[in-house]
């Protein structure tokens, strides 16, 4: 049982990572209706920038976080204006192919600059014992950051005029436009928030796990999985789905089926199976609830 509890805690930690990544994706998908294939790559760029400034150049931690945020927001806007915006109202595979090309370019540039071998960020970490569970201070900060950012997001969406106009745009674009809601500004701001949330999450994830140019696709797929399970465009569903996915992946390691253990190599399978099952069962229905 202690093993299961530990795995459950690990599941919550990795689940909150997935939820952070997926929340940004879900926010931008709800408005743009574009599967941003390069989302994981934007996160990877922020992780590598943080690695460069913090571990290579030895800048202080808050300065390097600030530089990372600046660079990733800049890159996010480049992605939005060059790779996503021009294809918005065109045939559906075009924005997908454009973001795929962005992801390939980013992956190439990163592996050109930093090499293909895995890197890790060394941060001094203390280990705490909470009952039978051992967690590091970094992992606690991940969970705390997740809770804070989701509380802020929830406040923003539920209680401000800005959040209501997002909802309005999502429900009915034309009536929102006729009510005088500035669509461009809202899209800009939503993209800004999604990049902010995800890139800070990316920094924390990169400190927790290792860095490699090939990590981005995994995060993109996991984020897609969370978004689809949680209902497309549904922010809260996405967050719950992320935590559910993290717990499922970790708990599956601890359960034995008549003496047969699932190895960690099969961990990623859950995300793929859940994507397939949810998509096939829901069919082509539009799940655009708020």
């Amino acid at each position, binding site marked *: 049982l202690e093993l299961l509890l530990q795995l459950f805690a690990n599941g919550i930690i990795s689940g909150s990572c997935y939820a952070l990544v997926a929340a940004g994706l879900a926010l931008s998908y709800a408005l743009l209706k574009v*599967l941003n294939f390069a989302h994981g790559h934007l996160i990877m760029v922020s992780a590598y920038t943080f690695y460069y400034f913090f571990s290579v150049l030895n800048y202080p931690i808050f300065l390097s976080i600030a530089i990372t945020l600046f660079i990733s927001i800049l890159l996010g806007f480049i992605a939005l204006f060059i*790779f996503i915006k*021009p*294809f918005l*109202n*065109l*045939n*559906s*595979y*075009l924005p*997908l*192919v*454009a973001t*795929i*090309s*962005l*992801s*390939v*370019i980013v*992956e*190439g*540039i990163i*592996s*050109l600059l930093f*090499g*293909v071998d895995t890197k890790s960020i060394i941060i001094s970490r203390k280990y705490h014992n909470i009952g039978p569970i051992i967690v590091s201070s970094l992992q606690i900060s991940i969970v705390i950051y997740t809770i804070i950012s989701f509380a802020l997001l929830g406040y923003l969406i539920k209680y401000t005029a800005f959040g209501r106009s997002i909802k309005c745009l999502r429900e009915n674009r034309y009536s929102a436009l006729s009510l005088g809601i500035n669509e461009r500004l809202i899209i800009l701001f939503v993209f800004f928030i999604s990049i902010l949330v995800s890139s800070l999450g990316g920094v924390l994830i990169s400190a927790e796990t290792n860095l490699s140019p090939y990590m981005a*696709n995994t995060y993109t*797929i996991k984020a*897609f*999985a969370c978004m*689809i399970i949680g209902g497309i465009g549904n922010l809260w569903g996405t967050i719950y789905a992320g935590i559910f996915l993290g717990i499922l992946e970790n708990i599956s390691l601890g359960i034995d089926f008549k003496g047969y253990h699932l*190895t960690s*190599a*099969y961990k*990623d*399978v859950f*995300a*793929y*199976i859940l*994507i*397939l099952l949810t*998509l*096939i069962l829901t*069919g*082509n229905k539009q799940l655009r609830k708020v």
Partner: protein
Amino acid sequence: MNYWLHLLILVCIYSSFAQSHNLLFGLTGQLNLAHISSFALGAYTTAILSTYHNNSMFSCLVASMFIGGIFSLFIFFISSRLHDDRFSLATLALSLLLSVIFINYREVTNGVFGIASIPRPVVFNIEILNNLNFLCIIAPFSFIILGINYVLFSNRFARVNKAIAENCEVVLGLGVNPKQYLFASILCSSIFAATTGAFYAWYVSYIDPSSFSFSETVLIITINVLGGIGFFWGNVIAAIFLVLLPELLTFLPLDSSYIGPIRQILYGSLLFIVIALSSRFNSVKLRAV
């Protein structure tokens, strides 16, 4: 000389592979990201049958085609439920699922170590040893595949599939069953991909899960987009161009570890430039919402 033969063989493999993707992507507009899995299944079937069981060339090819056909049933099931970006996402999940199986089902696929020293096939008691002999085998097959594709692209089949992409209700109203046509194009594209995969396994003689990664999918999407989506001759020329283009990089004075990433950046930026230009010149339809 041998180098040019090597390039010609690669052109044969990639042109028929990209053309088989074009059959589905170009005609119906559905981006099938699991196409590389058909290729991988064909390659693995051939590798296992010819390395461990000493089967002849003919039976390997038939088995690869059969497996490719069975795999197309899954894709058809997905496509009958989903369209557009949901279809792409579901097929992506399917292909990743298969790649996890390739890595972890060690008893059959030998895991990440892959299957090494796949023997070249024996045709009419002649052993295929050098590149010239291999080219003599692969060229007829890729001509057959390209020929079937050409026939499919220039008759009723292509017109009905394009009509399905534009407006399914009209096709139904004209008394044509769209599912038959969709199934036929998925089946053909999957079988062709599996056949090319078999030749790939024979030619490279070493396959592992990383040879069927996402970057291969990006390569064939680039070929399709560069050659014009749903345009036969353009795709053949684009396949030749894109196979030869990265070979120019080897002449540059670069460290060999840089060539892979530079090739990736090259493909990505080419893909983006072509997509941006084609959307600017309005050759693509507006999305019907």
